[in-house]
Structures are given as C-alpha cells and as structure tokens.
C-alpha cells in the first residue's frame, strides 16, 4: 500500500491513460457503437441479396401455407367435420362444428374462421414475386430460370390459397400485390372473379413449373435445385401436376366440368413425369406409407418431415382421431361411429375396411377397435417418422390436399357429369380394383355419380374432402332438399371471425350467419 502511494507519478499516468482511453473509445466512436446488428432478424437491406434469401423466402411461403392449414387442425375441421362422418366424443367445440353450429362461442371456431393466415401466404407470395427478381442481378448463382420457377411456385401457392379460401368463405377480398408497408382493408370480391384470377395464375404458373426438381438433365429444370437433388424436393414443392390438380378442382368447384375434364386429362396423361402412382391399400395406411414425410405421390401436400425434426403434435388428423391401442389416449376426440362405417363400407372384401363373413374379424387398415364402443380411425397414423411406437405422440404425416386416386375420381366425376360414362367407369374401377372391391358394372342400374362419390367417401375419408364432396354432389344432383337449401342460402360457407370483421369495416358477415 505504501509503495503504491510512493509511485505517484506512475499512478497519475495510469489514471490519465485510463481516462484518455475511455474518452477516445467511448466518446468518439459512439456512433458506431450504437450500430448493433441484430442476430434475430434480417433487415430490409439484408434481405433479397442472395440465393439463400430467395430459398428461405420461398420456403417461408410453403411454411405459411402449412401453418394456415395445420393450425388448429383446420384443414380437417373445414373439410371433414360439418355434418360429416365423424362424431365428437366430448369436446364441445368439435360437437358444435359437426352440427354446423358455427356461431357457437368457442375460441376454436373463432380461430378457424379467421382467414388471416391465408393472407399471410398471399402477401408473402406477392412480395416474393415482386422482390425475388432483384437477386438475379446481385447473386450470379441465382439464375433467371431458377427465379422463373420460384415465381411460378409463389403464384401457384397464392392461387391455391385463394381457391382454398373461396371454398370456405365464398367471396373474399382479392389482393394481387403485396402493398408492402401499407395496411388498407379491402372489400370482398365476387368469388367467380377470385377463382378466375386463381385459375389464370395457375395456367401461367403451370407453364413455368417443372415436373420434378433437382433432376440432372431434366428438360425443364436441369441440375440441382438450390443445391439439392430430387430426393430432397420430391413431394415438397409444387409441380406442373400440382398446378393442374388445383385447376381441376377450381373448375369442378364452379361446376365447370368441361374445364375440369381438360385439366384432369392433362394430369392423367402426365402424372408419371412427376412420379405419381396409384397406391396399394397397404401403402395408403401404413404408418410409413404415402403420408409419411415427403412423398412424390402427393402432388399438393405440406410436409412435416421427421427427418428434419418437423414432427409435431398438432397439424395432423391423428391428433384428433388416434387413441388406444396406438397411443396412450383413452378416447379419441373424433371417431367414425359403427353405424357410419357400416353405411360407407358395404363390401366385405374392401381392403380398407370389411368384415370377414366367416371369421367375423374386421380388416384394420382404416379402423381399429371396431369391436369396442368407439372405433379408432387409424387410416392415417404416421407416428414420429413412420414408426409404430406410440410412446411419444408426435406425428409426421403431411397435410395432403390431393393424390392420384383423388384426381382420378375427380376426373371420373367430371366425365360422368359430361356423359362420358365408360371412361368414368374405367377410372372408378381402377380405384375399386386397388382396394379389392367389386368393379362397377353399368348394367346393375346403379347411379354412377353416386357410386363415384361413395367411393370418394371411402377412399378419402380423413383427408379433408367430405364436406366439399357433399356440396358438389348436391349441386350435381340437386335432390338433397336440405343441402340445396343450404347452398342457396350460402350456408355452406363459414362465418367470418369477428376479429376479421372488426379490423376491416368494409367486410360484411356472410348472410347466413348474421
């Protein structure tokens, strides 16, 4: 201590040095010091600079679409529940949806009647279409062709979002630019116009979309796509077939069956280029089957691949319908009652579900625990990467919008409506044969269209089609008084969430739900 005091001049110098360095380092460079780059976001300036930005941006759109359909398991609540084949065991909100009591005051219903997440897809797609071109000039690795394909995907995704929304809400505001940074509400646009826009966008996108991604020597898009090969991309991105599949549905939804026939014809003629194929019952229902992760046989699907750690508990029909013995849950939230099963599956040899008349045993591909009070709908049961272990309940099944069987049946429907019975029957019989059921015979006097829809009911159960199928059937047949009244009164559409209405004064509630 004493020696310390004696070294007076030394101390002074130290002090002076400390202060000076303080002064210099802190005061003079303070401007720079306050420029802290956040590691938690990308600024406006940092985005749209290179290949990674466009790739992340594009994946972002797919991700938002997955969110729109997966959040609250909405894809199935919209498509499968209303007066459909499923019964709710105890959840009051699901019961309300099933009985079409959509004004009921449950948070779930408020959440799934809010269309914001679709507009997030639309906005991000518009933004991508507007901005991704900038990267072509900035990053030589990002080719014009690559950009063209990316933009085509964004357009197709945006069109798909519009189509999906129109099915639920009817008229929706049509917004075709990002209006980045402005937040104005728009009134609703007539649904015919919205669908017309979606169709034209898809036609344009289909021109640029390839059949496959990341294939060496491919005619349309040769070489790796964003550095990854075909295995990485198969089933994950929209292809030319995806665009035509959605167009087919847009046409069918509007009863434009002529167009639907044209578009489905394209699909039927070219599906092999995208490696689509008909699947066996085993492939359809195995836990590592067609629904597991990414699969080229699903042309419009959104993946939760376990390989990349994207398995979740929500966003899958399994969350709603699985129970013991597959997972440790006593009673499923939703189930298909025995009555309904017996009504839908009339043939004993049906590989999906049938009762062996001799042994009395049931086929378990679609339903487990048939002998119990509550059967478990187990068609889709992709537990964690396709395993069968139910000890940790997360799922990896993709949200499949369509697959070849669905498109074949749609074509059959279109052809049947247009009076081309035989080709329609042929398509229907492909499915029937694959499932081990009796072929449709025109001589038996059965109604072809009813048969096609009955087949759709069996084949597509749990894939989010039942509600829309019933609407199309009622439109074709016009003999279901209650349903046709619902269509006429626009009760087939869902109410719009109050948050949506509140945020935009130009919107009006769907008349049926006022």
């Amino acid at each position, binding site marked *: 201590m004493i020696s310390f005091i004696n070294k007076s001049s030394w101390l002074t110098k130290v002090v002076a040095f400390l202060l000076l360095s*303080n002064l210099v380092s802190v005061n003079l460079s303070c401007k720079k010091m306050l420029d802290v780059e956040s590691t938690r976001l990308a600024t406006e300036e940092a985005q749209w600079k290179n290949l*990674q930005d466009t790739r992340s941006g594009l994946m972002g759109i797919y991700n938002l679409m997955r969110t729109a359909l997966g959040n609250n398991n909405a894809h199935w609540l919209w498509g499968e529940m209303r007066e459909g084949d499923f019964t709710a065991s105890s959840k009051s909100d699901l019961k309300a949806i099933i009985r079409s009591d959509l004004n009921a005051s449950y948070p779930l219903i408020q959440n799934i009647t809010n269309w914001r997440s679709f507009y*997030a897809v639309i906005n991000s797609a518009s933004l991508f279409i507007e901005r991704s071109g900038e990267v072509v000039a900035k990053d030589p690795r990002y080719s014009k062709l690559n950009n063209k394909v990316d933009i085509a995907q964004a357009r197709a995704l945006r069109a798909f979002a519009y189509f999906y929304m129109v099915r639920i809400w009817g008229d929706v505001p049509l917004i075709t630019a990002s209006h980045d940074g402005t937040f104005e509400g728009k009134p609703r646009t007539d649904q015919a116009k919205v669908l017309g826009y979606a169709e034209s966008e898809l036609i344009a996108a289909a021109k640029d979309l390839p059949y496959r991604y990341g294939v060496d020597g491919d005619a349309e898009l040769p070489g790796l796509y964003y550095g990854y090969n075909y295995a990485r991309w198969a089933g994950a991105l929209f292809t030319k077939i995806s665009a035509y599949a959605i167009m087919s549905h847009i046409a069918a939804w509007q009863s434009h069956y002529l167009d639907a026939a044209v578009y489905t014809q394209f699909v039927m003629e070219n599906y092999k280029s995208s490696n689509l194929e008909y699947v066996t019952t085993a492939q359809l229902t195995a836990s590592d089957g067609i629904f597991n992760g990414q699969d080229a046989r699903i042309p419009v699907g959104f993946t939760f691949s376990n390989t990349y750690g994207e398995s979740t508990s929500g966003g899958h029909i399994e969350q709603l319908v699985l129970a013991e013995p597959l997972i440790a849950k006593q009673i499923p939230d939703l189930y298909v009652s025995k009555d309904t099963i017996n009504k839908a599956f009339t043939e004993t040899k049906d590989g999906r579900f049938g009762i062996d008349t001799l042994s009395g045993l049931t086929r378990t591909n679609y339903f487990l625990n048939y002998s119990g009070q509550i059967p478990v709908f187990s068609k889709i049961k992709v537990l964690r990467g396709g395993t069968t272990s139910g000890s940790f309940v997360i799922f990896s099944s993709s949200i499949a919008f369509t697959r070849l069987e669905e498109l074949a049946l749609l074509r059959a429907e279109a052809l049947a409506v247009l009076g081309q019975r035989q080709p329609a029957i042929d398509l229907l019989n492909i499915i029937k044969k694959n499932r081990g059921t009796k072929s449709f015979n025109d001589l038996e006097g059965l109604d072809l269209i009813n048969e096609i829809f009955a087949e759709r009911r069996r084949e597509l159960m749990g894939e989010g089609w039942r509600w829309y199928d019933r609407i199309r059937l009622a439109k074709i047949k016009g003999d279901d008084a209650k349903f046709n009244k619902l269509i006429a009164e626009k009760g087939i559409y869902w109410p719009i969430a109050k948050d949506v209405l509140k945020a935009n004064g130009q919107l009006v509630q769907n008349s049926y739900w006022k």
Partner: protein
Amino acid sequence: MVRIIASMSYTALLSVLCLSNAAAKAGKATPLNYNANLRQDTIPGVKKKAIDTASWVNNVARTRGGGDSLNVRLNALSPYLSLQQMLKGNVAGLYVKEVSGEPGTEQMMLVRGLSAPIFRNKDVNNIQPIVYLNGIPLIQNNNYIYDIQKYDFNPIGPATNLLAGIDLNTIQSVEVIKDPVELAKLGPLAANGAIWITTKQAKSGIRQISVNSYFGIAKSDHASPINAEYVNRFRKPFYQKYATPSDVINYPGYLRDSTNLDYYGPSKWGDLYYKTAPIHSVDLSISGGSERANFRFFAGNTKSAGGADNTSLDRYNTSFQINMSPYEWVTVSSMVNATRMDRNRNRGIRDRFAETRYIPDLSNPLPPSREIYQSFLDEYEKVIDENRNSGVQGYFAMNFKVSKFSLLTKLNFDYNEGIRDVFYPTTLMENNNYVSNYFGYNQRFGVTNILTFDQKIGTDHKFDFEIGQSFQSDLNKYNYANAYNGPNDFIKINVVDGDPNKPLYLTPINFMVYRYTDREQRRLFSVYGSVKYKYKDLLSISGLIRDDGSSTSQPGSRWLVTPAASAQWNLKNQFLKGNTFIDQLTAEVSWSRIGKLFNDDRFGSGPQYRVENGWGAEPTIPGYNGLATITRPYASGWVGYDLRWPYTDQLNVGMNIGLLNNRLNASLTFYQKDDKRMLINTPVPTETGYASIFSSGLSVRNTGIDLGLKGSVLRKVDGLNWETGLNLNVNRNKLTELPGGLKELAIGNRKLIVGQAVDKFWVYENTGIYNTDAEVPNNPSNQEKLNFEGTTLKAGDPKWKDQNGDFVLNDEDKVLKGNSMPKLSGGWYNEFNYGNFSFNFNVIFALGQKALNEQAANNFDFINRESGNDIGSIKEINSWQAYGGDLGKYPIYNPWSSVVAYRLDQDLFLENAGYLKLRSVSVGYDLSKLPWLSNSKAGIKRALLYVTANNLFTITSFSGSDPELIDYTGLYSGYRIAIPKTFTLGIKFDL
C-alpha cells in the same frame, strides 16, 4: 451538442490532472464517500462533508417521513428472501405482489402504477423499475425466451428471481427513487422508477464484526381436502337439470366408479403436500482499516422454504469491498459480490407440462389418496430438476478531487447465469421421458464518468455543475435443448454418434432432440449536464439536460434529448425561522422527461424479415422441409420505420414538514406520470396477412398521491418508546391516447378505451338465469329471440345484459368493470421499545382492486375444461380442496350450452381482491446491555435476540386462498403455492 461539450470538458480535465500535481496535492483531505458521488448533490439538506453513504440516504428517508425508503432495521428481523418481499407495503408508491409462495420465483414491482397495459403476464417485465446495487444497474432476464414457449406461466430456465440474490443483512439502505430529476439523472434505465440499494460500507476505525443468524420454520395452512364424492355431488345438479343421455355416458371415468377408493377414499394428500419446512440464515461481516485504506467482507447463507410441495431455495452470498485513498485527492474503491442460488421447484403438473409442451391424456387426474400421491412422490424421486443461478457484480471506481473539481470514473459489471437441468422419467410422462438443459446468461458492462464542480458567488449564491457520461453494453444469450423419449430412465444425457467418419456424426442416437438459442445485444450511450443554483438556505433550482443514444432505436432517431428541472423552497427558513413548533417545512416541484428504451432489438431495424415457423401451439418447428424460412413477421407484428423513442413525462409537487422537534414528519407528494409514444400491437385488416402492426402512440397517465407519515408518539429515555410510520399511495391510471387517433382498441380479453383506466376487466354483466325458453326476450322488430353471437339463448343460459339493446350479445355488450390494480395501497408499522425489550409489527394493505376468479370459472365450466385436454384441463393435487367462496351465488347454468355459460369474461367471477395483512410481528431483547455482557471485554455493541412471526393473517373477502396470488393480468388461477407463515428465532451480534 451536449456530447461535444462533455468531450471537451474531459479533455480539459485531463490536462489539469496531468499537469498540476502540485495543485492536486494541495487538495483537501476527503473522506471516503465514493458511492454517494453519483447522486449526492441532488439530495437536499445534506452537507457535502462528513458523510458516508449510509448516513445521507437515511437522512433522505427521514426528511421524507419514511415514505421513500425502506426501514431496513425492522425488516431485517423478518426472513425475507427477495428485494421485492422486503419492499412490499413498505414504500409509498411501490406496489409489490407475490404471485407465488414458492421461494425464489419471479416477483414484480410497480412504481406509481401501470405505465402500460398488461395483456399477458410477461408484459410486466417491461415496466419493472431498475435496481441499482451500490450504483450498479442490475441486469435482468430478457423476455425473448417466451418466443419459443407455448405458455407464459414461467420462463424456460431456472426462472429464479434474480433480486432474491441480495442478502438483506448486507443492505444499509434501500431507497425508491421517484423524484423526476433524480430519475432523469439516472437516464432511460430509470424511466419506470429506480430502486437504489446501498450496501453496508467499508468503514474506517477499529475492526467491526457482525454476526446475524436465525432459524425457523415455514408452514402452510392445510386446505380442507375433498375427494371425488365432493366433486360428484357438486356436479349432480347440473346433470340432473341439463344432461342428455349421451352426456351421462360421457361422465368422467374417474368419477363414475364410487367404489374406487383412490378417488372416493379418504383425501389425505395434504399430509404429504404441506410439510413444515425448516429455514435458516447465518452471515458474518467484518470491516475495518484506516482512513486511507479500509475493507469490508461479508459472507452468508440463507435457506428459504415454501411450506408446500417441497419447495425451497438455498442461497450463498459473499461480498468484498475495498477502498483506498492513495493520495488525499484520489479515492479508489471497488466491490465484488458473488451469489449463488439453488432452487427446489414445485412438483406441479402444469408447470411440468408447460415446459415439456407435451400434454398426455389427462382424463384421469392425480387422485386425492395419500397412497397414490406417495407413489407419485416416489416416482418423482427419479426426477432431476436442478436450478442454479450464479452471479457476480462489482465495480471499480476512482474519485479525484482537485480544488473545486471532482471527477468520478467508474467501471461496473454485472454478470449472472442460469442453469437448469431437467429429467422427467417415463413414469411421469406417459411412458416418455424428457430431458432439457438450459444455460443462459445476462451481462452488463458499463463505464460512467461524472465531473462536478462548484462555484460560489458571494455568500448567497452557489452553483454546482455536473457533467456526466456513460456507456453501457448489455448482452443476453441462452442455449437450450430439450429431448424426448430416451431409451430408458437411466440414460439421462443426450448420446450422440461419436464416430467422425459416419455421416450421422454428432447426431443424437436415442433421444429426439430440439435445440434453441437466442442472443440479444443492446448498447446505450448517454451524456448529461446539470446545474444547480442555491440561494442562501432558501431556494434551490436545478436543471438537467441529457442526450441518450440507444442501439435499439432506429438509426434515424437514435438520439433523444430530454430536459428536467426542479425547484425547492425552504418555507421554514423563509417565513418561520423563529417558530419552534415547525422544525422543517419545504415545498418542491420537479419535472422531467426521460426516454424509455425499447424492450426488443427488433424495433431498431425498421421493416424486417424474421424466422417464424409454426404457430402458437407449435412454436418450435425448425423450418420447412429441413430448410430455413424467412418471412415478414406476419404473426408477431409489422415493424415500420416511424418508431421513435417512447418517453415519460413526470411531475412531482411535494411538501415535507417536520413538527415538534421532528417527532412528527410528514411528506405529501402529488405526482403525474405520462408515459407517451409507447408501442402497442394494433390490429390491421387481416387481408394484409399481418396479425398486427407495432404502432407508436400509446399514452398512459398515472396520477396519484404518495403520503409518508412518521411519528415518535412516545419518546422517553427510560420509559416506553413508540414509533409509528404509515405509507400510503393513491393511484389512478388513465389511457390518454391510442396510436393513429383510435378511440378504443380491443386486444384479446382486454379493451382499451381512451379516457378509461388500462387495467379494467372487460366483461359481460350477469344478471341471473333464464329458467325457461319463454323468459328469453324477443326482439319486437323481427320476432327473433335474444342471441349470443348468433346462438339463440335457451333455458339454463345466463342472463347477460344486452347493453346496446340490439338483441345480439357480443363484444359490444361487454363493459369495462373493476380494476386489477389497487386504488389504495400501503403499509403501517409500529415499533415499541422499553428498556431492552422491543416489539414491533407491520401491517400491509391494498384496496380497491378486483380479480377474475378463473379457478371458480374452471370448477363450474368442468364440461369444457375436462374435455379440452389442454393445459387448462390439468388438475393438480391441490385442486382436491373445497371450492372457495359462496358457491350458492353462482346459478346452475347449463354447462353444455354452446354460449359457454361459465365463461370467464363475465362479472359473475369478478371479485373484490382487496386485503389487509399482518405481515410481521416481532419481539426482541437486547442482551448487550445486561451487565455480564456489557462488562465483558469482547466489546459487544448489540446482541439482539428476537422472535418473529410472518404472514399471520389476512383480512379479505376474496374467495381464493390468498388475494396476493392473483397474477398481474388480474386472473386468479389457483395453481400457485400459497405464501407460508414463518416463525423464526434469531440473534444479531455486533462486536
């Protein structure tokens, strides 16, 4: 401008230091008053000389009637663990609520009301006052952890209250700073108020040793336990009245079988759940040294316990201070504190599943049987749940005094880290096990330079100038990994493939592993200058201007210049010099504007792109098809370019009076606090894709009165002495502005209306029940019945008031009712001394606030709750207790109704939550004055033996277990552990 002046002044000062050694040596001898330097000049009535830190702070406290500073001496007799507990009810204008009796859980403080509305519990973190420990601004946890969480009950990680790391026995004084100019001097960190802790200081003189210790118990009251029969009987009327056959079939399995003794047998879980737990504390401090060099050392250990569910916290503190004065004109002082806390957390199911984000089938809750609960606890033995926080903080300061100049330069650092290791065995998680590891740290580094000098003109005029500059750099970071479904309950770590030649090198072998990390860095640079003018001993006026730059504000508006001013008039000296009745009478006015820091670095960047995968219930999906995604922040909210610094304007008008030889002191302060230009997430048309945008322009005004009273009612040297103190705060908040000229804004379950308070509940008014369908009113215009958002009301549905008379019940018919914040809060202490005996007690109260009883709503809404199988369906073991309150006041509604009859947002569940608590009672006896001790050579100055009891009783009409357990949004969930009673026997030795 200010920055340039500051820089120039330093340069000038440096030249003085370097050149004029001789002048320096001529400087006056200065006592060691390092710590006071930061603020001493603003403290009225304190002479610059002859102070050490402790004395001036106490002096302030005295002049303010005890209203602004903590009575440390009395509080040291209670086994308080955290700073919040010490301050609760003890300082006017500071409102503290312990939302859980679990020791070491996060607690919140609010200075002078709510400066912003609270939508979720985590929002409270953004309006916390800053705590200074010997001038070191303590860094707290960052809210970013909630980005990866599904539920915000607790943050991931140890979730320990960092302010529980300060040992009460090392504290000399705690002052709550509310004066606008003083806050302005501290800058943007102090925009929500500041709490200034001064530890006991190193002192010159002969060696001093203090030993404090206590032992005691923490004890919770047993609840009245129930079994399934109670629940069964509770539900019976609903089933009799409304159930359909299929509802009866769906009667919960665990209630169906009345022969099942697990559920229908004796309910004795309480014996295992509520256990009286020992608590203790022991610490030692030594100080000593010469005038030129002295030190203080402190070491202590404290164990606190919760009285229920085996919760406890173990804390180790050590602190070392050293001061030197190598020259008479230089003082060097430094301090290093180190703390470690280990926390035993509750064994609750909700907290566990909230962390694992995995909710198994909940249809059979944990039964009330003692045996089953014991077997649950046996399984829980396999759990690893280690929560450890360690921290060090310290400073190194040098103070130079050269003639009229004084320069303080100070480096300070604060670092704390939290570690949490968790393992849940398969038996607790439906054949799944779970591992998680968290490591996170917060660090703050700061440099402060303050130059002061004074100038006298004649004898009457005195000027004090001060220029200060500071730089601060904060860093928060965490790494977190959780893993599911390991191979068995013995392997508790993540095994990876160790062969570098394999393609799966370093990938997990058995567990499903998810990893998360986040990091945020912030910097703040400030300069200020202040002048204080004093005229005789009558009037003083100060002014201050400061300029702050923050890395979290946008480049275009990075800097904010703010002014402050105050005036103080000594009325006693002016008018009443000869008056012997009034000893002191001053009036003061103080005003300041202070910038408020953005709480997230996203606001500094303007429009941006973020990674937002998944959705609310699945926040952690890593990407799409294994690839990173980037999008506009559709879900979390658009950030535009036009965000400027929020700020707070504060005005104080106050008066202090001392009467009867200062035996009665009172201070009364009226304040108005306007927090302006704050950000709020406002909804935008959903067709834009955005859920909301961050808009600037939220303004909230808090007005109120702080009152402090302190009186020596009886004062006799040999007789009975009675000292009493009361602190009171009356506060009202009001929303004064919304962004974009909006008049009202509904966000979630809150509605903000300009002109109304921001803490109001937004509820339907319940007026009874419709017993028959015919009672439901008919709309005369279209003959339609009253409907609830489109659903026609029926018999068994509640009568909600149709406020606007349109025969549709919807949000328009909800009204703002009741406040979640108290209108009046405070505390009252009394201290009696007679000879060597002392007796004191402390009462705290908060009145005028309401709460929504979510627990009651859940009990009645059992149909939707149980079928939900979500986090709200979880039944803890302590849910097997009699439902609180008067159940008869709730009508028997149809619980199956799709209008959700027992919805929470109705005034049926709104309850008065005011309370008054006997917080502490203590009896002490000072042994040191006994002849055999006082004559001994040990030189014992004090040997206080005392007994204290805490939380003895609460007076309240609230039906839940404790009105303090209501969370900050005003909801009472009933999940939290009650605050225990404690009984301690302690001794304090000063040698």
